[in-house]
């Protein structure tokens, strides 16, 4: 079999890269302005009548999708099992907060660390194969984790871990106050988002991109491709875990939904719809999908059908995603 045959376009390669005609400095300034605008928008949103619980949910998923995008968009690795990091971190942080009585910051830290650890194990296994096999292995490992969470004595089985206390952040900020909680979630999201940008534009990120474009050549240049891929996998898992741990504190719940394979598919869809390999794409994709699910909540299984249909349309006609298409449109106008 040919893992990545010559002449095929790698996933995400159609999206315009970060380096354009404008040069790195202009890009960095553009990014900072856009990020500042986005953060300001989010900071104002609850005062403009947008339901903060919805925003928090979307922000958690946006971070989750950004973490996933780090792996697919910049490492070319399609993980079909990212729910295991989201869900595991959720369970660990919920357990720490509820059973051990840990303060929220420690609970989230514990959940994130658990996801990182799981990322090391799962990543080391999955990078032994490439392409389609990589996707199948991550999916199978996540399914194993699902059954583990279903049967383990401390996860509460079908019920999950409910009514997790939110507690006081650093002993001072009361997270029971929705607005305080909202700004905390926003801070976590922005920190994760900036961290991902930094990783992508670091020497590490550049080598990762080289491996994605042409692994054989990167190896011949002396880069240890496996180590780079593993590190990317662990980073992505850790950030996905951060999203999951935060989500568990926000919704005071850790449940099987977050470890199920449909969740792994959902994050793929968010990233694909927003634009794989773009910085802002996953955020746009996450808000679109969460918003859609919110409005269609009354339609039962039709949500699944619509989700599937968006998948099909994206793959057939819209592979750059929303942000990718916008970027391409701007590039065409500039030319």
């Amino acid at each position, binding site marked *: 079999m040919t893992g990545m045959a010559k002449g095929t376009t790698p*996933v995400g390669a159609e999206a315009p890269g970060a380096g354009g005609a404008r040069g790195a400095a202009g890009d960095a300034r553009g990014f900072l302005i856009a990020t500042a605008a986005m953060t300001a928008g989010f900071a104002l949103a609850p005062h403009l009548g947008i339901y903060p619980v919805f925003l928090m949910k979307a922000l958690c998923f946006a971070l989750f999708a950004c973490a996933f995008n780090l792996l697919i968009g910049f490492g070319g690795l399609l993980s079909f099992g990212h729910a295991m990091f989201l869900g595991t971190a959720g369970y660990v942080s919920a357990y720490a907060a509820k059973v051990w009585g840990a303060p929220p910051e420690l609970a989230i830290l514990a959940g994130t660390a658990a996801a990182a650890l799981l990322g090391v194990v799962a990543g080391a296994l999955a990078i032994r194969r490439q392409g389609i096999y990589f996707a199948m292995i991550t999916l199978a490992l996540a399914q194993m984790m699902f059954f*583990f969470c279903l049967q383990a004595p401390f996860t509460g089985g079908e019920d999950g871990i409910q009514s997790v206390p939110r507690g006081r952040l650093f002993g001072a900020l009361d997270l029971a106050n929705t607005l305080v909680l909202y700004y905390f979630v926003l801070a976590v999201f922005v920190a994760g988002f900036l961290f991902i940008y930094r990783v992508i534009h670091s020497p590490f990120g550049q080598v990762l991109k080289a491996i994605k474009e042409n692994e054989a050549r990167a190896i011949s240049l002396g880069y240890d491709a496996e180590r780079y891929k593993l590190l990317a996998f662990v980073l992505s898992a850790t950030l996905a875990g951060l999203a999951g741990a935060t989500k568990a504190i926000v919704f005071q719940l850790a449940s099987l939904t977050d470890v199920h394979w449909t969740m792994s598919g959902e994050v793929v869809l968010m990233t694909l719809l927003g634009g794989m390999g773009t910085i802002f794409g996953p955020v746009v994709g996450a808000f679109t999908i969460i918003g859609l699910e919110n409005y269609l909540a009354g339609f*039962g299984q039709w949500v699944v059908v619509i989700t599937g249909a968006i998948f099909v349309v994206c793959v057939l006609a819209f*592979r750059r995603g929303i942000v990718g298409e916008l970027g391409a449109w701007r590039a065409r106008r500039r030319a």
Partner: protein
Amino acid sequence: MTEIFGIPTQALFGQLLIGLINGAFYALLSLGLAVIFGLLNIINFTHGAQYMMGAFCAYFALQYAGIGYWWSLLIAPIVVGTTGVVIERTMLARLYKLDHLYGLLLTFGLALVIQGVFTNYYGSSGLPYRIPDELTGGFNLGFMLLPKYRAWVIVASLGICIGTWYVIERTKLGSYLRAATENRALVQAFGINVPRMITLTYGLGVGLAAFAGVMAAPIYQVNPQMGANLIIVVFAVVVIGGMGSILGAIVTGFGLGIIEGLTKVFYPEASNTVIFVIMVIVLLLKPAGLFGREH
């Protein structure tokens, strides 16, 4: 009552039989995946949904047209295989020049659509499908009772598997197929219509899934979600066996089914995960899979 390792033989053989049945379905489904992957380089995520469609096809045929099990075994693969041909022509064919992962994403989306539509109309509880009259009852083997239908499933799936192996490895058509897997352009240059062959191969693989679905209908009941979790296990089976060889897919499928059955006897808590654990071990020892070729 006789016992082996402290386990009553009745329970042991009962679970072994269930393992063999599950193994038969693993083998049939991973075989279809391997055939499709060989030529299209696509992992068909829709396979589980197409297996479910096969079962529903048999259910509809019986419910609305009075068509029985035996005709369904023939009709369902043709009907579902035809929908597969349409999917290949209208959608998959546009993706061959792109990364293979797009094929996975497209078929995943299609699986969601199909399963969602069926769940909408038929809920998630199973619909019963009765065993055909000829196969009710069982054989008394002395140490256990072997239901006739279960024996039939094992024999029929073995037959189909060996038949598929024979077509691909021993006939002229199969030699074209294998040649096209190795070098598509060259085979096309010899005047063989490769695009049509690809279409038919996808139809055949999908037909195999539908056939498995009809056989599963009397055992597992007809349920919109029946293929959803199964397909993930089958993916693990494929990773363990490697997709390089047809015989490998068959042996791995049956072997893992039996191991799963034995796990249910000796350590039931792990029966859901044992195949994934084996996958991990195989990845550590022989990353290309038991029958796979390192490239």
